[in-house]
């Protein structure tokens, strides 16, 4: 579905994306994983032909630079920063995007229903919460039933319940054969949705792997997110790895896979190294072998 060959994008002398190549087959689900500034968003924009880049990208065999319009017709996109015309009403916004995609207006109601926004058509966009805007973006992405859905941190503005609903929607879309490409900072999402993970750092692909390899364990695990002083995150990650933990530093704290019955173990390790943990967030219950099997 997606073929990226030597994609590079520079901002001045800084390489936002550097020589990235990968293939994502139809029906597959790939997560882009990495810290803030790793190049995930820029890579997505390059792939969709929104910004110019070096290299070649195609969606469904259509070159996104030479024929971006056709390539984007195969794609539903949910951006990281949701920007709609604030004065527009939700129904009006849907109507506009339906006309851009030549979708019959009868389908608008079904798309809104799919993301739980039925009954909000008359609300102005500025009156919607962040989560509702995110769901609106998902509804727009689903309007034309594209075979490829590209999402840039689709749950970043959602609470736990909203997050679960979106993940469930994406899981169902996947089961219907849709191809998913998404950037995420949440291990539970990556584990629950992706069959491949591209780990990016400083614009490059560090690893092309699977969630099971990224968070290896034989036992049922949970992922905890540790919040600590940013300047000490790197030291903490090294310390936890040395203690045998699988750790990922993704710009939103340290994500550590821990056995279900030893969630406090990383805190103990860090306390020994005199690193203070400010907060612990236990992410959604995840059983790696079940999810990835």
């Amino acid at each position, binding site marked *: 579905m997606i073929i990226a060959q030597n994609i590079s994008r520079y901002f001045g002398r800084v390489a936002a994306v550097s020589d990235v190549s990968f293939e994502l087959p139809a029906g597959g689900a790939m997560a882009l994983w990495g810290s803030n500034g790793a190049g995930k968003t820029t890579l997505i*924009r390059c792939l*969709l032909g*929104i*910004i*110019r880049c070096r290299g070649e990208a195609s969606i469904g065999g259509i070159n996104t630079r030479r024929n*971006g*319009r*056709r390539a*984007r*017709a*195969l*794609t539903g*996109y949910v*951006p990281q*920063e*949701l*920007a*709609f*015309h604030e*004065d527009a009403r939700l129904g009006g916004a849907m109507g*506009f*995007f339906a*006309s*851009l*995609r*030549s*979708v*019959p207006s*009868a*389908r608008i109601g*079904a*798309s809104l*229903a*799919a*993301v*739980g926004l039925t009954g909000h058509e008359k609300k102005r966009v500025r009156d919607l919460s962040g989560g509702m805007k995110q769901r609106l973006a998902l509804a727009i992405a*689903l309007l*034309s*039933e*594209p*075979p490829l859905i590209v999402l840039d941190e689709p749950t970043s503005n959602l609470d736990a319940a909203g997050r679960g*609903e*979106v993940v*469930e*929607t994406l899981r*169902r*879309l996947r089961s*219907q054969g849709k191809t998913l490409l998404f950037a995420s900072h949440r291990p539970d999402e990556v584990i629950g949705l992706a069959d491949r993970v591209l780990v990016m750092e400083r614009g490059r692909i560090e690893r092309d792997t699977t969630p099971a390899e990224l968070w290896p364990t034989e036992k049922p695990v949970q992922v905890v997110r540790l919040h600590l002083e940013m300047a000490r995150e790197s030291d903490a990650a090294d310390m936890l790895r040395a203690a045998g933990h699988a750790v990922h530093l993704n710009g939103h704290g340290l994500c550590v896979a821990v056995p279900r019955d030893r969630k406090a173990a990383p805190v103990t390790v860090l306390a020994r190294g005199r690193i203070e943990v400010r907060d612990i967030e236990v992410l959604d219950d995840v059983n790696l072998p079940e999810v990835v099997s």
Partner: protein
Amino acid sequence: MNRVMELCCVPTMVPARPPAWGGGTLAFARREFRDALASKWFLLYTLAFTVLAVGVSFLSMSGVGAQGFAGFGRTAAGLLNLIMLVVPLMALTAGAASIAGERERGTLLYLLAQPVSRTQVLLGKYTGIAAALVCSLCIGFGVSGGVLAWRAGSVGVVSYLFLVGFTVLLAVGMLSVGMLISVASRRSSVATGIALFIWLALVFLSDLGLMAGSLIFKLRVQEIFGLAVLNPLQSFKMATIVSLNGSLDVLGPVGAYASHTLGGSLVWTLVATLGAWSVAPLLAAVVIFARRTSV
């Protein structure tokens, strides 16, 4: 979220091809037109233009020592300077805010992620704003014209209609310049600032510059005429005067030269110049916008 299954039951087409080019452009035009009609600037400019146009048509009679409404011809002459001030300002600022505003709000990126080209976005927005501008002008001219027809009869109505046509050409020309400024600017405030400077230059500075240049460089009449025509406001003024008087003799030696040299083709030359101001900046805007490597 279980309703996803409902979504799948709605008959749809998988988009093997993008929507028709014209359909996407029209969708942008419709939205832009609706947004403009609902905006405060549209209301303000329309109201101001209408009040001033009716006021000018009333005051036009005072020049001949009478009170009440003048005829269409005299009103057209009276409206000339008002249009040269107000219409370029309306069109330049509306155009300048269009793309730069979308870029600043972050909405442009999302629009460009849809199955549309940059040219469609630009032309759609241009068409929508142009339609709103024409609508605004038609309301102003319509109210003024209705009052005139009621109080002063229909003498000189052809000159008035020519004025409406030239004003529309001037408006879309200035809108093109505004769009060009907009695609080249990152921020809406910068685009509006540049638009205001260009308005100032066209309305005031170019006349002063032409006068100074003709004195310093001892320009010949044909050179002065050539330079004057480059300013779309001067082209508009000359075209309106020709439609009212049949010649440009009232403008002195330069006008007499233009009238005698170009004769019947003078008005078409001026209309072509205004047309070029509509097309050339818009084409430049399309090229610049399409070649931008970022949003």
